[in-house]
């Protein structure tokens, strides 16, 4: 209950673990392992390992401890906080942990669950679950697998894995490490809500196998870990209050918490997740709608009305500010096929993009209420786009990704003239009752500074991505200063500094805006207990 024993893994012979030695060699032949999507520079590694299984991974950890070289874990490298960028020591690629291990039905929860190694990609897991086609399991010819597969296929319902970060080529282990979120987090919650079991390897090379619902923090806030050498490691769960919004800012902590949640979202600083079991959800037909509104105020009215109305249960509610639509309109003029949608309405409009359950064959599909809600806010459901066929839903999904792509394209162009330029993207969330206030703060701060900016994102969770596009170094400076002011304001409203991107290496300073030194030290204590040698993912979350 409040105590867990590690599993000892006999390390393999380190000599058999595939390894590339020497920074020059790694930089020349394998530069991808030195970066992620944050494009953080200054990476360094003297060793690059490719362990094939837990035994080889344990061997690497033991050996690197012996050589006093810290280890940074690397999987799909789609992160945008520099989490897998090695500062020194070794970088360990988990790419060979890429198999789906089993599919089973858990009767007590009435759920289908998939057990996968950490480098199974999100889109592959989802594709296989939806198509009911698992090449790995079919190849293995085990009778248990065959029975599960047959039962799964006989089940006429369709299933999917709800967490939907934009980057579906992320690894499942990566999404667990960062408690990844997407648009659907509005209705279904973040990754945390869908993880049923993890195997996490600690810095010592020993493994904790944690199913949800078995190990908890004691009433005094402790969990005891007993390792192979019979040592008792006491983890003191931090006592700061859990955030009121979706959050990937530092270690998750709550009274009587399930131990599994300590590791989910810990960004690899407490251990590396090698295997994870996730639950699937039944899929229903959906209607995707982009509702156009005449102003940002009208958009906020519409969002609040959607949230409040009990007759409507959107899967997600997303937002495009006026600047965002301006950008897309320009892109449409240059390359209509890239945007793939009919002409966007005129300047000044905003858009709210949402999805609700919908049965196209029902005589009354029950979406008339959406017309009423729009009318009450002074908008018209004629000024909208809607679709429900699979190919239309794909079009809408593609449309959601065009804006960030377009922003990146503009920044890339500006970088050609001024290489030091980069975009600034906020990842702040606030509680429901502060949405309007936060929007006013964004507008006043950024318009006040005369910066070019666009806002879009998960307005249902009061979590907007505000991208500042500096046109010169002076604007970049102003933007960075503005960024910190915005983060402080979000915290003052009871929000968080990182809602889904994680802290990684680039947002540690923001952590101090949200937590006191004492609270951050509580996080450090947990890390120190599980990783006394400070061997794994140095520089992530907690500044060195």
């Amino acid at each position: 209950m409040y105590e867990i024993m590690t599993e000892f893994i006999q390390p393999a012979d380190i000599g058999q673990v595939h390894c590339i030695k020497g920074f020059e060699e790694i930089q020349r032949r394998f530069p991808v392992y030195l970066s992620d999507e944050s494009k953080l520079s200054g990476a360094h590694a003297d060793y690059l390992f490719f362990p094939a299984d837990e035994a080889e991974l344990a061997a690497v950890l033991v050996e690197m401890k012996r050589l006093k070289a810290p280890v940074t874990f690397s999987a799909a490298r789609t992160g945008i906080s520099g989490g897998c960028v090695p500062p020194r020591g070794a970088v360990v690629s988990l790419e060979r942990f890429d198999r789906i291990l089993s599919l089973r039905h858990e009767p007590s929860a009435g759920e289908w669950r998939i057990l996968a190694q950490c480098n199974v990609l999100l889109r592959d897991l989802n594709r296989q679950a939806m198509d009911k086609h698992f090449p790995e399991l079919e190849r293995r010819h085990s009778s248990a697998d065959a029975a599960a597969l047959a039962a799964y296929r006989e089940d006429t319902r369709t299933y999917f894995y709800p967490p939907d970060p934009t980057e579906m080529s992320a690894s499942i282990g990566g999404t667990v490490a960062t408690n990844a979120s997407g648009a659907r987090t509005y209705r279904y919650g973040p990754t945390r809500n869908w993880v049923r079991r993890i195997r996490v390897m600690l810095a010592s090379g020993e493994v904790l196998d944690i199913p949800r619902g078995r190990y908890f923090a004691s009433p005094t806030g402790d969990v005891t870990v007993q390792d192979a050498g019979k040592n008792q490691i006491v983890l003191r769960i931090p006592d700061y209050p859990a955030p009121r919004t979706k959050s990937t800012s530092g270690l998750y902590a709550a009274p009587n918490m399930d131990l599994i949640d300590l590791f989910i979202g810990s960004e690899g600083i407490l251990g590396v997740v090698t295997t994870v079991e996730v639950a699937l959800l039944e899929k229903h037909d959906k209607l995707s709608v982009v509702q156009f509104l005449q102003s940002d105020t009208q958009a906020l009215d519409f969002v609040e009305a959607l949230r409040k109305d009990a007759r409507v249960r959107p899967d997600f509610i997303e937002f495009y500010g006026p600047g965002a639509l301006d950008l897309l309109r320009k892109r449409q003029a240059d390359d209509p096929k890239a945007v793939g949608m009919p002409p966007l309405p005129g300047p000044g409009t905003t858009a709210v993009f949402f999805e609700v359950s919908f049965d196209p064959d029902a005589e009354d599909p029950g979406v008339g209420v959406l017309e009423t809600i729009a009318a009450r806010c002074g908008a018209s459901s004629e000024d909208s786009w809607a679709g429900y066929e699979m190919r239309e839903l794909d079009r809408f999904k593609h449309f959601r990704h065009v804006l960030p792509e377009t922003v990146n394209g503009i920044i890339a162009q500006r970088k050609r003239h001024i290489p030091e330029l980069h975009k600034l993207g906020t990842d702040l969330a606030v509680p429901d009752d502060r949405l309007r206030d936060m929007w006013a703060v964004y507008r006043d701060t950024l318009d006040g500074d005369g910066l070019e900016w666009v806002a879009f994102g998960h307005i249902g969770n009061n979590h907007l991505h505000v991208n500042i596009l500096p046109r010169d170094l002076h604007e970049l400076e102003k933007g960075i200063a503005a960024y910190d002011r915005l983060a402080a304001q979000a915290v003052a409203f009871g929000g968080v500094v990182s809602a889904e991107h994680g802290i990684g290496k680039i947002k540690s300073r923001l952590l101090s805006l949200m937590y006191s030194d004492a609270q951050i030290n509580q996080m450090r204590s947990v890390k120190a207990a599980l990783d006394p040698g400070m061997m794994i993912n140095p520089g992530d979350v907690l500044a060195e």
Partner: protein
Amino acid sequence: MKIVVCVKQVPEISNVRINRETGTLIREGVASILNPFCEYALDLAVHLKKESPGTEVIAVSMGPPQTRSALMRCLELGADRAILASDRKFAGADTWATGKTLAAVIKAAVPDFNLILVGKQAIDGDTAQVGPEIAEFMGLPQVMYGVTAEFGKTRKRIRVRREVESGYEVVEMRLPGVVSASKGRLIRRLPSLKAIIDARSKPLKTLTAVDLDIDDSHLGLKGSLTQVVRIFPPQSRADGRKLEGLDPEGARKAILAFLQAQHYVEGGQPSC
């Protein structure tokens, strides 16, 4: 003005795969959609309706009950009403029997039509036969491969810009007549939420064989003049080579060497 648009529901062909061992079609995961060329025809009808207020657009289709969803799509995209001709007796029809049936449906349901629009071809059959056959069975003139069209001032004629081998030509035809649509918008339209909701209260009528003035012997498989006697997978090409991981210089070298070896470019190794 009444414009009849004949449409077909087809499988999303780009997703259809063949099980090479059995030569059968893999039907799982293949969605049914409104034939793209039929959507072009509907777009043209809606465009003509906008230019000529008071025009009614009627979507018509022959197929199994699930064809309803393709007609619903037409209603969402601007058709005023829809007619589904569905009956077990229609099953297995070749293009001749289909044309006969659709002509009978139009005669029964929209006898006072002014214009019939069809898509150039259906992406599952690709015969492009049904449009001209409907025109012939109804004694109407036809203009095929239309790209855009406009009614004349008195709306007694239509001018169609159509594709020909040498480019384009504009053809004038007296109404009533049949026009097929060959090209559509670059970006497919999206209905508004209102259009989707309203579509469900637009009239969608189903007709069966008894509602039509047509002999049973002309219907379905029994009425077909052609008969499929064999189905088999196409021959696959002998395995070629696929080269990956080459940089542009390496790729250029590989292609040049190949073209020289095949004697499309001079300088290859002598073949003896």
